[in-house]
């Protein structure tokens, strides 16, 4: 049956309106929900603007001060005499990231098998390991750094441990997800030719999960160079200490140079790591391999 537009009468439209109300207007409940969500969000935002002083003159004074004192005095960067020292400390930052990531991966590797449903029969053990990893992960690097600085003293070691602990949590989650998604049949194959537990892992599991593990580990290293660069703010080593020190002493031009060193180093590491990922494991993904890529 074909309907010609010219033949449609008002009565037809009215009949259709009764028959298919959803096609003409969203139901009242949907409209209410829509406006409550958006209206509520807008009201909350307005309240926040008021609460935190965005709507007062002080805010405008702050903006003026920010442009005149901070932005204007950042440029031009100076302190090039100290550049070799900055570069050395940046190297220390990258070293912290590398060691922290590596330690985290080492701790996480055995734990991730315990945390995988298809590798561990005991449900409480598996679940407990997962939750433990979540607990490690839910504190920020800086919080762990604060704790470790108190416990083992100022310096890069505290930063390395902070990164290692957070990364243990992250890697247990990522690795065990990879292990849970693997193809059972390869393990069965190794079992069928008489392989023992270790051989099952070496020849049945690792070939499947290693590329994904390597790619994520490299990616987290990249991410941790960024994390390591701020740990110094609480005294846990790395370039963050110098940066915070210069900013607090109002030596903004030198701080600017440090920020430039930091940004360039972060880009260089990103670029290197991307090349390595592609070389090693043919990981051509443009997007981050980790679902909760924390850095962006």
């Amino acid at each position, binding site marked *: 049956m074909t309907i010609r537009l010219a033949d449609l009468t008002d009565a037809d439209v009215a009949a259709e309106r009764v028959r298919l109300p959803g096609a003409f207007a969203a139901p009242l409940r949907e409209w209410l929900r829509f406006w409550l969500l958006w209206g509520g969000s807008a009201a909350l935002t307005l309240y926040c603007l008021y609460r935190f002083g965005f709507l007062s003159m002080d805010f405008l004074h702050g903006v003026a001060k920010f442009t005149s004192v901070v932005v204007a005095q950042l440029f031009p960067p100076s302190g090039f005499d100290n550049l070799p020292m900055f570069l050395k400390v940046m190297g220390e930052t*990258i070293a912290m990231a590398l060691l922290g990531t590596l330690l985290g991966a080492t701790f996480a590797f055995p734990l991730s098998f315990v945390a995988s449903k298809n590798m561990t029969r005991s449900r409480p053990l598996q679940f407990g390991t997962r939750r433990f990893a979540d607990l490690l992960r*839910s504190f920020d690097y800086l919080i762990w750094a604060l704790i470790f600085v108190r416990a083992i003293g100022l310096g890069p070691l505290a930063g390395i441990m902070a990164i290692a602990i957070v990364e243990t949590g992250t890697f247990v989650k990522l690795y065990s997800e990879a292990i849970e998604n693997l193809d059972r049949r390869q393990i069965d194959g190794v079992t069928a030719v008489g392989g023992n537990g270790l051989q099952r892992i070496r020849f049945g599991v690792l070939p499947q999960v290693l590329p994904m593990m390597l790619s994520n580990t490299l990616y987290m290293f990249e991410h941790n160079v960024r994390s390591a660069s701020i740990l110094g703010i609480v005294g846990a080593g790395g370039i963050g200490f110098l940066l915070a020190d210069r900013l607090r002493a109002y030596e903004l031009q030198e701080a600017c140079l440090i920020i430039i060193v930091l940004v360039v180093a972060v880009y260089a590491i990103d670029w290197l790591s991307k090349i390595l990922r592609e070389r090693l494991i043919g990981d051509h993904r443009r997007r981050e391999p980790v679902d909760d890529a924390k850095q962006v």
Partner: protein
Amino acid sequence: MESAPPRGAGSRFADEYADHRRRKRVYASLFGVAFLACVLAAGITAKFDVLTLVQGLPRTTEFLVKLVPPIGMATFSADVREWYWDINKWAGSLLNTLLMAWLATVLGTFIGGFLSFFAARNLAGHYLIYWTTRRVLEIARTVPDIVWALMFVIAFGIGPLAGILAITMHTIGAQGKLFAEVNENISPLPIDGVRAAGGSWFEEIRFAVLPQVLPNYLSYTFWRLELNVRSATIVGFVGAGGIGHDLFTSVQLLYFSDAGAILLIIVATIMLIDMLSERFRHSAIGKASFAH
């Protein structure tokens, strides 16, 4: 008149396989040596000292144990009340932290979302606009939010305002980049349609682009809110407001049980937000209840 017997395919295969194995082993060991050299260099640069670490670990455990005061079964509620003696102040700080994260997410998402249209190759119009916007967004997100916080504290003084602005800067950079990637992946057909009907640039964005990208935007925004709550708990370390300030002071003053109480509040909040955000994100994509 003896010549070497013709070599069969099988032995040629064996030779080549052995060759392949050898080459692979050489590459692997070269890579291994380079990797070990890197690790060694890193260990020296960062003054990694196993002895200090081993000596420090008992102290770490000691520290962690001191975070929780003795809580008896019989006097459980009294002990917990004693532990959380300053709960009113901490709850206020927690509320501040959450609201800081909310406001920074909203502001950052609006500004970053606006900039994302100029940072998308297919929508920017001119290459110079595209290039400049991209670089601005990159700087905004490569400078860590706590460094932004240090700078804003200079201008705005100690308090949540500096923290909000710092997290907003980072959010602008991150959302701008992610949204721009979403924008670049849209279908050009609706844009052609609006253009053919005589629409302006703003009408193109409103009627051809936004309907395609809004669900992805929302998903990224929930995720960003989750990350910003994390950031809002630490910008207080440099005086930019939120519960991080309370934590920092209590650790500095060696009030261990206070620090433990605040850490527990933080961990519970982060886990709750993670859970809520995951559910919200799924429902936002599934039903698109925000995007009409």
